[in-house]
């Protein structure tokens, strides 16, 4: 059963948007040991593809995303965007981190316009663009609120709007809805599905929530416990447009989830043993 999802049904003719070639990352732990976080990962992401990276916590999936984003320099390997090797941060990328990264001293509209300001769009134009996006994402009426006045879900929505404002070709999302309640999460996932359907951006989405990965992605990449390696890839052939509420009760959704979960469980157990081992030696 598992093999069915592991085999590509037809060769993909879409161009490769983002390619990782033999990426390895290691860092020094506080007690001076060299820890290999990511081990020789190669991955191709095609144009307009939605790829989810999933794996046990601490497997290096966020590190991998930071490498793709140019925030972390890998020890070895290359990152190619549109076939060209990247140095540092690329302007084609929009990045949404796990932690809230709205500027607390800026109003919603100023936060949304931030990326445009950095790209030196004139003030009048960027505020008009931001105002339009704010209306489209259902944040109208909160333009002049400060982040601390918003709920967790709304802050996330502002963050998404801010990333969309710079109209990136590739969107990186690192467990964006981690700490939210289930209902808010589902609403935001619906937003993501709708936005992706409208804009067809290339998306790399890191999560440890398997259901979320299957709901959103075209392809799920399972990263093994530390050191992170690509353990398996699964094509998710569920029809689009999808709906977060309904898709969960789809028979094939449940089948896919069971298949991936068997592999994921192994890694989670391994990761846990690894942590115990580390705590024993240190």
């Amino acid at each position, binding site marked *: 059963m598992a093999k069915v999802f592991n085999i590509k049904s037809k060769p993909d003719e879409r161009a490769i948007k983002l390619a990782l070639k033999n990426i390895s990352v290691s860092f020094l732990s506080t007690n001076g040991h060299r820890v290999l976080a990511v081990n020789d990962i190669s991955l191709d992401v095609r144009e307009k593809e939605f790829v989810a990276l999933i794996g046990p916590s601490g497997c290096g999936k966020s590190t991998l995303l930071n490498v793709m984003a140019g925030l972390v320099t890998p020890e070895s390997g290359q990152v190619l965007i549109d076939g060209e090797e990247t140095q540092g941060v690329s302007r084609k990328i929009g990045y949404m981190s796990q932690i809230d990264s709205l500027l607390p001293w800026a109003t919603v509209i100023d936060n949304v316009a931030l990326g445009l300001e950095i*790209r030196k769009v004139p003030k009048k134009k960027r505020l008009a663009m931001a105002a339009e996006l704010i209306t489209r994402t259902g944040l109208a009426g909160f333009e002049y609120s400060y982040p601390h006045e918003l709920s967790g879900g709304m802050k996330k929505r502002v963050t998404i709007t801010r990333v969309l404002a710079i109209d990136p070709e590739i969107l990186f999302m690192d467990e964006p809805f981690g700490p939210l309640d289930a209902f808010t999460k589902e609403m935001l996932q619906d937003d993501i599905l709708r936005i992706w359907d409208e804009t067809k951006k290339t998306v790399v989405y890191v999560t440890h929530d398997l259901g979320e990965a299957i709901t959103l992605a075209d392809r799920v990449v399972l990263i093994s416990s530390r050191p992170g390696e690509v353990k398996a890839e699964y094509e998710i052939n569920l029809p689009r447009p999808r709906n977060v509420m309904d898709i969960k009760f789809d028979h094939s959704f449940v089948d896919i989830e069971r298949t991936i979960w068997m592999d994921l469980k192994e890694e989670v157990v391994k990761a846990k043993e690894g942590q115990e081992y580390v705590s024993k030696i240190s």
Partner: protein
Amino acid sequence: MLAKYRDFRIPALVGTMVLVSVLFALWEAAAQSGRVDTFFFSSPSLIGNDIVKMWDKGDISKHVTITIREAFWGLIYGGLLGTICAFAFGASKKLTNILLPLMVGFNGLPKLALGPLLIFWFGIGIESKVVMSAVMVFFIFLFNIYAGYCNVDATLVNAVKMMGGDKWQILRKVTWPSCMPWFLVSLRTGLGMAIMGAIVGEYIGANKGLGWMIQDAGGTYNITRVLSCIFLLIVVMASLDYFVKYLEKKILRWRPAMEQ
């Protein structure tokens, strides 16, 4: 208590004034009845008369203005230099490693010890007081804002970096606003320090200013005059502090209101 009165709150300022009036009344009564020697302790009525007299003679505007001017320029120079140094320290690890121990050492020094040197170098005019004031203010800004710089949220820096922000944009959009609360704290503490620097400077050598007046009156056992000057100082300090507090409230609107 009646429900109607339960929400009625006395404004804090009124409370302060009532307290001060009561204390003044007790002091006055004690002085009038002869239980307190006015030669040593003066009395509110004597101080009041003295202040009116100083006002009429134009002493208040002259000396208070001098002291405030010294403190003001001290605050500007010390604050500006301290802020710039704090950012330089924040930006360069190397510079910090070399200079920070020196700065900590200088800060430990009682600034009063610099007095004779400053008088020698800058004369007994306004300059030596401005420098004294600036030296005292400088360290407050330096250490506070440097601490603020070290506390800048890396997530925000990364977010701006990811949007393609350069160093200057990160400084303007993230570092400076997040140092703002620290800057305002420095401004409030620095204000007191600036006045103190000016007064101390005037103690050591001057021919005008509130500090000089206190010193001069003390030398002639004019306790009433000393206390009038102290009273004026308190009023000046409190109103300046009030102003900075107001500024803080305006500028830090983005922060969630602090729970009492």
